[in-house]
């Protein structure tokens, strides 16, 4: 087993780590969290919430011990959180491996199979999904492919079906990324592992050019460059100091070979599979937006007002879905002053963000009863 242990506040929660492999043989991580209080230990009627991280992050982003994290808030609000480390997790070795994957695999294997497993465990209880970034984008492919029917509700943060970069990120990410992917299999973020003399040094040096007062190269590569794409993952000021100091644990290497799939979707501003018909992925839709009428549950789209990675992608998604598919229950909430990933890992996320998520889940839970 190669899965790195979950870094959770063990004084507050108990982690049930479940050995989990996708049907294509890829090792994944699945865990159920229970609060360390007698009432919570015995609670069996809680709606379940599956949390999906973004590419190169991991389930750790939902259980930061240094802040009031999403798992804490969900447990307090009466939900049962489940964390899936899909194959893009930095707790797993796949991003630095030689076996390539695409978001098709995540949409076809990881998410539906995790959902299926959880459903077997929770019986008739409701199941929600809260997903971030490319976890949410993969989820949109699963949903529009009809692979995860019957969810009680979905929260998609950062991006969902309409990825959109800035002009700068297009240039650096799509064009520069093309240059990079023939040289590197992955781009690391942990400068302490990379060292001063490595083939990645020029990339760290470039990222540090507009670093301001921060002197952490790992922060530079994430905040000023986002693995060379010219994006920015978070509003620096929103991070807790301890979170800032452990960024290298929270984010891992980005595989360069996944760039073309992302580029294809971004240039079209539409989630779509990499593999075309006849390659074993026929269950996935040709184009997620065209198949959006297969979404069968309410969707809450969240985005930070200062998202410098996928910008106003979710607002665009909301506009498109509400005009082309007016029957869908889609809402959009913008979080003032937040960036791309800090709506989950920011020190004030419990105050500014999680209330929207819990309100949505509560509303859907109440509606079903």
């Amino acid at each position, binding site marked *: 087993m190669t899965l790195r242990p979950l870094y959770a506040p063990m004084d507050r929660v108990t982690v049930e780590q479940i050995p989990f492999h996708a049907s294509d043989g890829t090792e994944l991580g699945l865990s159920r969290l229970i609060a360390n209080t007698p009432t919570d230990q015995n609670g069996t009627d809680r709606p379940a919430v599956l949390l999906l991280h973004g590419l190169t992050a991991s389930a750790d982003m939902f259980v930061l011990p240094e802040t009031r994290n999403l798992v804490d808030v969900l447990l307090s609000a009466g939900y049962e959180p489940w964390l899936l480390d899909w194959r893009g997790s930095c707790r797993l070795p796949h991003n630095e491996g*030689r076996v390539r994957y695409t978001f098709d695999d995540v949409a076809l294997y990881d998410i539906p199979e995790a959902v299926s497993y959880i459903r077997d465990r929770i019986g008739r209880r409701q199941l929600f999904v809260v997903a971030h970034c490319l976890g949410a984008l993969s989820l949109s492919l699963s949903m529009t492919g009809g692979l995860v029917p019957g969810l009680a509700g979905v929260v998609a943060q950062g991006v969902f079906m309409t990825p959109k970069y800035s002009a700068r990120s297009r240039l650096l990410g799509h064009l520069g990324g093309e240059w990079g992917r023939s040289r590197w299999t992955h781009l690391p973020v942990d400068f302490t592992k990379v060292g001063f003399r490595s083939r990645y040094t020029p990339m760290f040096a470039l990222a540090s050019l507009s670093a*301001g007062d921060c002197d952490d190269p790992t922060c530079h590569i994430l905040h000023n460059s986002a693995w060379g794409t010219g994006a920015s993952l978070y509003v620096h000021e929103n991070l807790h100091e301890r979170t800032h100091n452990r960024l290298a644990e929270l984010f891992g290497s980005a595989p360069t070979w996944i760039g073309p799939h992302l580029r*294809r979707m971004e240039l079209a501003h*539409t989630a779509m599979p990499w593999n075309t018909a006849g390659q074993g992925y026929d269950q996935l839709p040709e184009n997620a937006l065209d198949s959006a009428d297969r979404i069968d549950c309410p969707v809450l789209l969240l985005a930070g007002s200062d998202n410098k990675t996928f910008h106003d992608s979710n607002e*665009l998604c909301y506009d498109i879905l509400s005009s082309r598919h007016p029957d869908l229950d889609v809402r959009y909430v913008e979080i003032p002053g937040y960036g791309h990933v800090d709506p989950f890992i920011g020190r004030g996320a*419990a105050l500014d963000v999680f209330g929207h998520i819990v309100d949505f889940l509560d509303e859907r839970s109440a509606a079903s009863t």
Partner: protein
Amino acid sequence: MNPSPETGGDVPARHHEVDRQHEGELIESGPRGSAAIAGLLARFQPPPSPRQSVDSTNAPQGPVSGTPAWGLEQLAKAIVSKAAALLDIKEIDTETDLFDAGATSVDAVRLVAVLDRELNVRLSLDDVFADARPRRLAQRWLGSPTKRPLPEAPAATGAPVAPAATGAPELPVASAPSATTTASQGTDIMPTETVTPDETLPVLDDHAEDLALIMADLARADQLPWCGDPEPVPPRRVLLTGVTGFLGGHMLLDLLRHSDAHVVCLVRGDTVQDAERRLAEGLAGFSLPWSAEIRRRVTVLPGDLRRPRLGLTDEQWELLANELDSVVSVAAAVDFLRGYPSLRRTNVLGVLTLAELAMTGRPKPLHHISSIAVFNEIGIASMGEDDPVAHVDRLTAGYDKSKWAAEAALRRARDRGLKATFLRPGGIVGHTRTGAYNPHDINTGLFSAISRYRVAPKINYSNSAPVDWVSRVATAVICEPSGWGQNYHLTGRPDTLTEMVRDQELGGLNVRVMAWDVWLKDFLARCESDPVPELEFMARVLRNPAGQKIVEASVTAPMATGERTEAFVARHKLPPPTRYDAQARLKSYERMARDGLVILPHRDDPPHLWFRETMRGKVGPADGKPDTHCSFALTLSIASMYQLVQHRTIDVRGTVSCSLLHPDPLTVDDGEIWVRPHEGVPHRHGLDHPLLRYRLALRDSDGNGWWLEGWKTARARFDYMKQARTLTIRAGREGEPASLAGTMRVPKKSYKREQIDGIRVNPNLSMREQRIAKLAWLTWFSAQLGQGLLEPTLRAGAELLDLRPDAIDLDKDRYQAKLKQWEKDRKHLR
């Protein structure tokens, strides 16, 4: 109880010009609350002052038959009675400030109407705002040299005339004797015996009284306890006042976000639930969250800053004194019309109570949100953090005096050991992300007036900063012990008139600049001739002499400087002060437009920029071959660059000629072009990206309606010019599906002539402004068009790049090459 002959008074005769029955009914039927203030004020002309009343009737009114004569105390008690009934409050007396008792501006309007209607006492709103103590109101009415001729005493009483009240009015210090009558609602007090009018009452000298009152208030600081230094650690339990207000609400959230402190919020309310409801409503009004997660870290404490010991029990007071480790004073009565006596209980005495709390028990720092209003002396040379503040005798507005007095009192408290921090914002403008703004901020009012009338006063500097920055820096100071006890200017990066005018120009919202006094006259004249309810707040401020001085001082003020603040911001890696430019104010601007405070240019306004577009082509039945000639003669226009950049739309007018639709040309009733709708996301899977969408509502000469929809589409081909000129259309009768379809094209020759050389700009703008407008349009539209046209080609090109091998493939190739080389070398060695 209404006055009646039995109680010694007849029903006062109605004076038609000041009859407020209708107003009263309007008010009583209208909504209550601050949101309704502007509307209510706008419905009523300012009530005539006694002088105006006499002047306007152009003749002495003469005794009003049967109207009772008032003595000072008697009238004051009558006003107490009316006010108590109006405000539904029992505990007021003749020295109670009605605003302190909970009256709002709406209540002030109602009181003026009630006093006029029921007591025949005609006060202006300014009188009530200046000093809202019933005794002072009575004194102001009776002591005015221009008060109306006194009415006859009721003949029925026949009692002897009482001696005239003499002597100067009592100083309204706290120790001054007051009428101790506690009002009981519904009990009208009317003169039951003949009283002699107080003809000898002198004219009130408000300013001298204010100064005396300020000195008396400052002396209270000498009664504060002595205290030592607070422990220099970040606070864990903070008392915060003013959380239902604009800045206080934002500071509450910032304190929670950027510290681990638990915050005790002092909120007015009878119960915890009531106070919590007020807090939740206050936060929601400024787009701030209120959730279970926030409630976990907040204790809502019902209390009242204006009352001794904050209206808390002794146990609560002791508990706070011993448990708190920081006190933050944000609450203030921010009202530019009210006088010092009306504001002092909140703005001065309340702050002194907080100082007492900070100095009792465990020593605590007191962080006081002051204001650069303490410099509001016209002609002051500099406004640095440690510069001397204004001379109080040169301050005119009650608000300025109250902020000055609070600081002066706290300076005395500093001498007794209090660690008092002065945080002085200037104008606090809207949130850069949510757009939440304070409608009663002078800067909001000024901006609203400028945007609506497109005329600006000559401003030296706008010493204002967005609320998010002010709140963030203020909370950082509160949480940083090394920053306590100093003065900070939270004025951000002052804006200049040139920069403001340039922003307006780029947005296509050009403004003219006038000297202050010319602008003032112009603004008031516009408010008279064309009153706008949303601007009534600003109009009232500028009609009031003290209000005028506040605004004049703010537009003529020098640049506020804040070296200490800047150093603090840099040291603690806080967001640096940046200019509140067009981008930063965009959200507030949109929110103000929704609230009616500013008006966004509309398609019915004279256009900012326009040009012609001619199209020719063929249409036919929807399922047939297009064979009928058709032509468009359109005029494309924008009302402002804001419309273009934010909504990406262009307005369309003109005619459509097509014999299949009608023999005569059809007129465009309503038309719009959407540039790169939905960022050009294809409608169906493929490489066809929408470029422009035309939607026209047409009307033929017989009055029948038609709809027409057209798309310009970008494709992965190199005929970009053709794609940019070709429009695929569908049309049909109103409410029916498409019956016609076809393709239209902009003739190549007319493209440059009409759409580049033929661009026309609002002729009222200068030539330079016209050039800027034209270039701004061309730059924006070309960029959009270029991006839209290139996207399909980029996607097709990327599909080629996808075929390239990546590092894993190349590594494999390299490995294979190495193997081959190794084999070759081995063979060679053999």
